[in-house]
């Protein structure tokens, strides 16, 4: 069953004098457990497509189905709740809450979900161990390296037990070693827990790790390659 299905998705921005067609008629199906990279040159529409899949933006035309729910028809408040329950996000700039510790950052999403303290404690401990930061739980983001912050961000994205994780250029701010470690960790989570990851990226290392690579050019799918 497809976790994500887009049907004839268009996104047109009318801010400029001339309308900008960021995404043009994209039809896409992503199954559970995929490790997919959406690639393409700057301005090709990757981030816009990712935003629409993540319920952060709405298509001008067409529909985005997540677990058979047409999220393009949800209200702004419904979308917030939907994202909380179904989607994990990893951002290029980590975007952790600077005043919270690593542990609190991971726990935060679970608190929004009103999970019990026992569940939160055990899952946060397990996730921070999974991302290799058991010894950094009480550190604030400013006390962690970029790679470590991004690992906390991955743990946070997984904390809510989402259906899939959207990662927009997750390695862009990392050095090679940190990027490699992060990707290995994500690949392991994908392998062991069947967690679906969708990347928007330029990074060849991500593309190399991905099992499926979708290339966008001028808002259209140019190629869709599933690796053997």
């Amino acid at each position, binding site marked *: 069953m497809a976790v994500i299905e887009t049907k004839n998705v268009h996104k047109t921005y009318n801010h400029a004098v001339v309308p900008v067609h960021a995404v043009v008629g994209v039809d896409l199906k992503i199954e559970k457990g995929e490790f997919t990279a959406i690639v393409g040159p700057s301005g090709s529409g990757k981030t816009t497509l990712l*935003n629409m899949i993540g319920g*952060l933006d709405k298509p001008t035309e067409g529909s985005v189905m997540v677990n058979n729910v047409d999220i393009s028809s949800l209200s702004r408040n419904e979308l917030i709740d939907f*994202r909380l329950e179904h989607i994990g996000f990893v951002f290029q700039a980590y975007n952790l809450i600077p*005043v919270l510790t690593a542990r609190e950052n991971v726990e935060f999403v679970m608190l929004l979900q009103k999970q019990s303290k026992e569940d939160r404690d055990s899952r946060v401990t397990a996730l921070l161990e999974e991302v290799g930061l058991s010894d950094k739980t009480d550190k604030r983001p400013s006390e962690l390296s970029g790679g470590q912050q991004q690992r906390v961000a991955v743990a946070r994205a997984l904390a809510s037990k989402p259906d899939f994780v959207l990662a927009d250029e997750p390695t862009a701010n990392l050095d090679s070693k940190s990027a490699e470690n992060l990707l290995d960790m994500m690949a392991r989570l994908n392998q062991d827990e069947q967690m679906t990851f969708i990347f928007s990226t330029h990074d060849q290392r991500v593309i190399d790790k991905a099992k499926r690579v979708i290339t966008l050019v001028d808002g259209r799918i140019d190629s869709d390659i599933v690796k053997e």
Partner: protein
Amino acid sequence: MILLIAWRNVWRNPLRSMLVITAVALGLWAGAFVMGYSIGIINQRLQTAIEKEVSHFQIHHPKFSEDFDPALVIPQGGVKLGHLRSDSYVKAVSPRVIAVGMAASAKQSAAARVFGVMPAREQSVTGLQDKVVEGEYFNDKKNRIIIGRKLADKLNVKLRSKVVLTFQNKDKDIVAGAFRVIGIYETTNPGYDEMNLFVKALDLGELLQVPGQFHEIAGLLHDPELVEPFADVLKAKYKESLTETWREVSPELGLMVDSFNQYIYIFMIIILLALSFGIVNTMLMAVLERVREIGMLMAVGMNRRKLFAMIFFETIMLVMVAAPVGLLLAFSTISYFGTQGMDISGMYSGHESLGFETFIYPKLEGIYYLRIMILVIITAVLASIYPAVTALKLNPVEAIRKI
């Protein structure tokens, strides 16, 4: 967690937060102190006016105050005086004979209101003896007069000078009496000193041909809070007389108190309004420099209600740190000066001529601190709305776009 984030956000930029906290604390300190100072001034003025001039209540013939006709004495004044003297609620009473006429010296003359008093009783109500700054209080001798400093200067009289008082007696005949100045008094109200002079009730009663009768009985109660109900009882009991509270005798005093109470709140509201702009500015800066973070919070599932609450609590906490500091400072200074007093004689010339004391004892009761705190909370709530609404308007997609 929302409260935790809000609290930590307050200290995220310690310098900026401390500036706002300091501004709010100083504003509240200044506002509360000025309130205490104003209340101190007005209370002292009121206390002086009541205890030294008007008294808590007065009894007259119902028509006496229309034209001060000497014939209009209090019906059964002596009996009433006896009742009041034995009333446990009454601290002191003073019966008075009153005449309005002319006071003349060898060189000048002036309009004057003459109070014929029983010296010991008058002392117990208005403390007239304590106000005598030159000469002495009444003794056994007849036709002695105590005159205000201002009137003495105007008539150009000194101790032992002779003053002739001229007025109508009960039968509308013009009568005059020569009085020798035995004392010169001075109050904080020169206007009062210029108009009023005191002789013994016996002397004045004889001149007016109303011996043993009174035109006025002024009284003080042990508990000033009971003035209104006590006056109601007297009004019901002495229907043939007119009983008035200090508010009715001097409505301008009541108006002054009410006006001051309004002014001090308006003053505090203006201070808080000014502070609220500073708070809004700070919180707006805090929101606008966290656009990405707020966008991220919305992206990962923080709903608008919680986001609003976060900014709201952040603002409340910022103000709530400042408010106790400001009010504590105010409490300390008001308590200190409330005991030690503030000498403002060098600051305002003419303050005294308006009837106000020059040594002020600021005073602010607990209820005022509570009201200020409520006003502060309202200010914080209102100040949080604009930054919080600004945060709500942010689009979560910004968080990702800015990557």
